[in-house]
């Protein structure tokens, strides 16, 4: 019971293309979503594919921006600038 009530830590990884416009928006949108819905219960890693293209390749990322939920399972993803808050929340498994 106690374990279920403990908020599960969300592990997220956002792949971006440097300071390109949709990437910048995705970062801003994600920051707002995390602040409002997750407070401190998340770990976010941002991977710049312009600096680390091989990581994107290894992780099977096709386009950026690309948000991957690594845990808890099931893994999921959202692509694009994350401006559709509802679909991001759905993909991340976050209730409203």
């Amino acid at each position, binding site marked *: 019971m106690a374990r279920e009530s403990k908020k599960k830590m969300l592990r997220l990884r956002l792949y*971006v*293309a*440097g*300071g*390109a*416009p*949709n*990437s*910048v*928006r995705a970062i*801003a949108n994600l920051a707002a979503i995390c602040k409002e819905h997750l407070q401190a219960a998340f770990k976010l890693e941002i991977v710049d*594919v*312009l600096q680390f*293209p*091989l990581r*994107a*390749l290894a992780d099977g*990322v*096709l*386009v*950026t*921006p690309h948000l991957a939920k690594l845990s808890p399972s099931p893994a999921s*993803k*959202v*692509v*694009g*600038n994350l*401006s*559709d808050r509802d679909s991001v929340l759905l993909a991340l498994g976050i209730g409203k």
Partner: protein
Amino acid sequence: MSRGGGNPVSALPSNVLRLVKDGLERRALDAGEIDAVIDAGSGNVILLPLAKRALALAASQAANNLLAALPRPDYQRMLPELEPVTLTYGEVLYQPGQRVRHVYFPSDAHVSILVVVESGKALEVGLIGREGMVGVGLALGVEHSSVRALVQGSGTALRMPAGVFLEELARCAPLQRELHRYAYAKLAQARQTAACNRFHLVEARLARWLLMTSDRVRSDHFHLTHEFLADVLGVRRVGVTNAAGDLQRRKLIGYRRGEITILDRAGLEAASCPCYGIVRNLAS
């Protein structure tokens, strides 16, 4: 509504369209929400045209002083809405009474602000280059231009639609501060110019405007016709010829077929009326 900065699908390179055929990724691509595509075969990251342009813009430090003074995250956020344009000598950006549709942040172009009186004659009351913005009236809540904005020096600028500019202004306190400071500098410049036009001699005023132009193009060499200068100084063409001849005789400038070269900057500053120094200090 995401102002998605979308590439029209027809403008997408064919290799991109081949790599992203369907699914979530293709829908995001069609919606203009993608910056780059990764080619698994080659390991290359392919930037889409708009993203490439935005990154190139960001990489070159903002060439306009107002934009460069903004905190980087604010400037980055505005970048997708700043369209690089080329301004050409003689191009009219605003006519008096016209609704302001875009504001302009010059990089190396410069723009004359002219008051047009009922006879149709015009007098230059301001000069805007990389230190400022064309359309500051909008920042003060005025939607229509009261002046003519005429491109005096060809070059590049960044342009932003009026509606977007007003939104940015509402949310970005540093932009407000920069523009308020700038609006005051323009007011001070206009007041000084009023006194200058009334009291100072043509040669001294010509020296002042030549120095102001040189500051904005960052060069001692630029092009200005007698007609243009006549409007600037509010004198007849022959008045310009005489004043320019005077400065040439004093070996302060070279002036041949509209090409002006400042030969002796210190001397030209000494020949200029004090308004040059006064306004320059106010604007910095």
